[in-house]
Structure formats: C-alpha cells, structure tokens
C-alpha cells in the first residue's frame, strides 16, 4: 500500500509527534508513506470565496504532484486535509475555477481532480481495516477510557468531506476500540474548539475548549485524542487541564509497540 504523503508545515515543527508516530505506525502496518518531494503550506484555511485563486494553488500543486506519481494523497493534519480535499472538490466540480487554476498553473497535463485524497484515519479504516489493526496491536490499552475530539475540519461540510457522519461520527471511537481501550462518547466531540480565535480572544477559546473537555471528563475519559494541532493546542492550553490531550497517532504507535511509551502521554502538558 503506497501513498504520497503531505505532512504540512505544523507537522514539521510544533506537531512533530503527530507526524513521527504516524510514520512509525505506518511502517509497522506495511504502509508506504512517501513524502511529496516538493510541497508548500496549504494555507491552513480553505479559501471559501470563489474569487480566491492564488490561495488554492498550493493545494493544487500537492494534488498534481501526487497525480504525477500516480498515488493517492495521504494527509494527516485536519486543516491540511480539509483544505486539500475541498480544493480537490472545486477542481472536480467547478468548471470556472478549474479553467482559471489550470490556465494559471500552465501544467503539461491539466489537473481536474484526479487525485484521491485520503486522511490517515480513512486509510486505517478503509484500506487496512480496524479489525486488522486490532490483530496487530501488541500493547492493548486495556482499562483506558479514551475520548475522541473530532473538531470541525474533518467532518464539515459533509457533502464535500464525506469523512463520517458529521453529527455522530464513529471513526475515532472505532479506532480507540481497536486499540483495546474503551471509547467514551460525549456530545460535544464535533463542536468547535475556537480555532484561531485564541490568538485574538483567548477567553472565547477557553470557554469553548472547557465545555468540550468538561463534557468528556464528566463521562470518565482519562485521555482525549485528536488529529488536529490547533485542537490539541486549544484543549491543552485553554481547556481545564484535567486530562491529557494527545494525537491519535501517538496512541497507535504505542499500542503497536513501535514507540517508547514515555514519549506518549506526557506530551505537551
């Protein structure tokens, strides 16, 4: 199983754990993650406005890079996945946008959305299968009560993202169960953590993050996992601090026995 991999800027710096653990786990699962030879920051927010052209180009470059290598494009950071998947959708469905982008990029072979964009979690679910992962787990997380925090970017808008049920997602819970832990569901797992607002109004992000964390803790979670560096930052820095928030890949690498345990749960506190 081979993918072109788009790590994104944050995974090279502040969220290196997300990236490193993902690579370790992929290796153990026999998945080849081939980092795109050239990539740029995706821009972190999807350019909603239809007259925004330049801000779409870096995503298209990544998509076209994977197309030339004839690979599906694997993403890991929620924001990157959101941006790249939606820009890809524009290239598939918006004739006007496709024409403008292609005339700007001047590619030998025009790009029109041929690349399949796959999030790491989708890869685990659809390509490998959680049953297979359950078999590969060497250090099952018995007795652990883990909550998943989805955030916004992976789920919405569901008509484009097609990731999971946007109001009652289950992919991370299935993932947690596959690792041998007990998934703890709570109603705010798809509510916004505040995102970039914390740069301007930290109190707003604090209120939102606390509501999320409180809800999970009340139901007995001992850890929260996420796929998004901003979500992790907000929950850890603006939450109640009652339970650790880690990347899902860290847990994966740990239970597959390919990661030193001490690097895992004490992260970022």
């Amino acid at each position, binding site marked *: 199983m081979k993918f072109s991999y788009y790590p*994104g*800027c*944050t995974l090279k*710096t*502040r*969220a290196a754990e997300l990236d490193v653990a993902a690579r370790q786990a992929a290796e153990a699962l026999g998945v080849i993650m081939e980092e795109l030879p050239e990539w740029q*920051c995706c*821009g*972190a*927010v*999807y350019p*909603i*406005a*239809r*007259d*925004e052209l330049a*801000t779409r180009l870096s995503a298209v470059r990544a998509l076209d890079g994977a197309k030339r290598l004839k690979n599906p494009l694997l993403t890991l*950071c929620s*924001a990157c996945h959101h941006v790249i998947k939606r820009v890809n959708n524009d290239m598939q469905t918006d004739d006007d946008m496709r024409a403008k982008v292609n005339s700007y990029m001047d590619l030998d072979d025009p790009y029109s959305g041929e690349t399949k964009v796959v999030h790491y979690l989708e890869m685990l679910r659809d390509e490998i299968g959680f049953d297979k992962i359950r078999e590969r787990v060497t250090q099952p997380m018995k007795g652990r009560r883990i909550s998943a925090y989805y955030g*916004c970017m992976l*789920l*919405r*808008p*569901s008509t484009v993202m097609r990731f999971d049920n*946007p*109001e009652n997602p289950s992919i991370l819970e299935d993932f947690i169960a596959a690792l041998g832990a007990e998934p703890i569901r709570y109603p705010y797992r798809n*509510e*916004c953590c*505040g*995102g*970039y*607002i*914390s*740069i*301007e*109004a930290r109190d*707003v992000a604090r209120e*939102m993050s606390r509501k999320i964390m409180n809800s999970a803790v009340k139901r007995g979670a001992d850890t929260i996992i996420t796929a998004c*560096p*901003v979500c*992790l*930052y907000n929950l*850890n*820095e603006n939450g109640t601090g009652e339970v650790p928030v880690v990347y899902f890949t860290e847990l994966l690498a740990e239970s597959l026995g390919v990661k030193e345990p001490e690097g895992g749960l004490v992260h*970022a506190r």
Partner: protein
Amino acid sequence: MHADERKEAETIIRASGVNVRKCMKCGKCSATCPNFDEMDIHPHRFVSMVEEGDIFALMQSKSLWRCLSCFACVERCPRGVEPANLIEAVRLEVIRPLAGNRLRPEAIPALLDEKIPQQLIVSAFRKYSK
C-alpha cells in the same frame, strides 16, 4: 440603497456563491453557532441583511472577526444557504483594500506563546489579513 453599497452586495453574493433567497428564515444557523454570544450581528441576520443589501453595517460588524469558520451553520442549514460563506465574503471586502488588515505582522510576536502551532498563526493571518 447607496450605489456603492449595492455594488458591495453584488460582489459579496458573487464571491460567496450563496443564493440568499433560498433562506426560509428558520434560524437554525443561529441556533447552531457555537460563538453566537460573541457576535453583534448573528448568522441568520447576515443572510437577511445581505439580501436587503445592508452591507456597510455588516462590514462594521464584530461578527466578522468572531466567526470561526467551523461550518456548523453550513452543515445544518436545511436549505443549503451557507451563512459562513457570506461572512467570509464580507470579511474579504474589509481586509482586501489597503489598510484593511486587522492583524499586522509586527503585532504577532507579542501574541505568541511557545506552544502555538504554526497552523494557528497561518489561519489567523489568512482570516484577518490580506
């Protein structure tokens, strides 16, 4: 309506790709918004004010900087109206002209802590500046 304002309304409708006339005024967007209390003009009013061409008031609105683009309103709207897209389009109208930026590069270092992920700064920058 002022001619400039009418032009702004047209730009916003074009750039957002939203058909405001589809709105049936049920208020589910405002019911859904996680940051409702921080906004002076609420999502459902954004839709009706764009429909009425009341753009200058929207351009002054605090809501522009409080919408998180979480897409909950887009997801749950029963008629596919996409209020978040309208807010984005108005925000762009404010920051696109020179001196419209809300966030200046010089201001950033003071805002940082050592754990802030790059992605957060980039998103804030993309949302608040051009």
